């Protein structure tokens, strides 16, 4: 039983379908990754799940409830957190203010979540009052993830969290993602770094040209000969 799932979703820009008849989902406390070549519709599928793009077909379920027609803001209130690929922080606000903005619509657990985020990313404690735009790429990404965590989401969605950061920082970030999932939050992410992402994923979705090609657990996909040859470079 998926916590968040897109069933038979079809969407795109204008009359072109970027994603057609896709099934994507994530279970509580697990990590799902969407991988695939450039232009496979990974990010588009992600946006559709969060309501940033209208569906032409299919439906989206959160905890069994149909949320297909909800606005992104309403989905945040229902327990979804989204980290966009780029421009995912407020550069001239301080780190703490960035986090506070994450909790803008739901202030009920502001203090508790601030402590939680600083515990998760201790590097941010010293930079609390620094402008987020002055941070390094890795730390910005931490701020971005932290911001999305502020509303205590049930599902955290990450669009290419490792884009533009060094491999070492990426490893660190993936460790944090594992930790977040272990603490009960479902994590759904889109990743360019298919190998790394599948390694930590419970479930992987290989997309190609907007269609599900393979769906399996992460390790089996890594062992799958076809997947290796086509997308993981042998």
């Amino acid at each position, binding site marked *: 039983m998926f916590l968040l799932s897109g069933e038979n979703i079809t969407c795109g820009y204008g009359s072109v379908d970027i994603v057609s008849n896709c099934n994507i989902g994530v279970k509580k406390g697990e990590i799902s990754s969407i991988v695939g070549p450039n232009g496979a519709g990974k990010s588009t599928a992600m946006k559709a799940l969060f309501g940033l793009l209208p569906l032409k077909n299919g439906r989206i379920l959160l905890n069994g409830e149909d949320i297909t027609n909800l606005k992104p803001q309403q989905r945040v209130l229902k327990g979804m957190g989204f980290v*966009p690929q780029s421009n995912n*922080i407020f550069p001239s606000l301080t780190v703490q*203010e960035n986090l506070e903005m994450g909790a803008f619509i739901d202030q009920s657990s502001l203090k508790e979540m601030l402590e939680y985020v600083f515990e998760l990313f201790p590097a941010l404690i010293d930079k609390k009052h620094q402008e987020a735009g002055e941070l390094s790429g890795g730390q910005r990404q931490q701020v971005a993830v932290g911001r999305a965590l502020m509303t205590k989401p049930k599902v955290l969605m990450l669009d290419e969290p490792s884009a533009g950061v060094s491999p070492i920082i990426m490893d660190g970030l993936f460790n944090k993602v594992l930790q977040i999932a272990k603490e009960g939050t479902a994590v759904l992410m889109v990743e360019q770094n298919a190998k790394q992402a599948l390694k930590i994923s419970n479930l992987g979705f290989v997309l190609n040209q907007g269609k599900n090609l393979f769906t399996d657990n992460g390790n089996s996909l890594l062992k799958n000969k076809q997947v290796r040859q086509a997308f993981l470079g042998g």
Partner: protein
Amino acid sequence: MISNYIVIPGLTYGSQLALGALGITIVYSVLRFSNFAHGEFMSFGAMSSILLCWLFISLEINLYPLPTAILVLPIAIIFTIFYCLIVDKLIFKFYRQQNSKSVINLIVSIGVMFFTGGLIRFIVGPGDKNFFDGERFVFKAKTFKNFTGLNEGLTLKTTQGITILITVLLVILLFWFLNKTKTGKSMRAYSDNKDLALLSGINPEKVVLITWIITGTLACVAGTLYGLDKSYKPFTYLHLVLPIFSAAIVGGVGNPVGAIIGGFVIAFSELIITFAYKKIFFYFLPSFMVPEGLLQILSTDYKIAISFIILVLVLLIKPTGIYKGKVI
């Protein structure tokens, strides 16, 4: 001597420019267009103050020794905010929903500027109006001389004192609002990254509403203070929008601190360059050597040109302004 003719007038004029530039900077950073109608919004604010002043004076309500304008300022602010909101609802909202480019908004704001200017002249007429009443000076040259025992007197006009005081108060209030309150932070967040602000559940309509409330307040206060200090004439506000824009750009567009600094930079440069230095030489040189002219670097008629020279220099050397702002 210098403080009499440069420092105090500079601080006063600078405060007025700073308040105006703040209004422009806030509209620019939140609504993303250069609001050329701001000068006329200031004029509208001053006009509201004048009309209310007349009303209050006829009712014999005043705040002597302070000018009546201070008493009516809060009501005038409400009028100005109301006017800004109506303009926004009828005009800017349409272009915002169309997602128009900022150039189109800029041209629209020029239209609003001409309309507002016309409306104001229609209501109060184009003539000069002096609505200052109350005590003229905080202290006169003579009193200051007697009080401190210094040779040269220092005068502080009431309007100058009020201008500087109100500006300081308003700026403190504005910065407290932007940096400490939840709504203020959400406004900065919206200006920083609109899409992410929407994702975080910040209501854009509310941000726009608050932006106009702040802009209306700033415009009304700046306009009234300028009118009090100099006397109110609708056409002067058409010219005033130019140094205000220079101030906003020199300081760094979109940066409130920059707008204030920019205001003072422009004000002081204008005054220093158009100042008649004759009086200074009068003190240092023996009387037969004192030159006959006024010894201005440039005549006061070139006042506005100076702000443009500074603007061009800043755009050439440091396009982001003194404080890093957004490049237009």
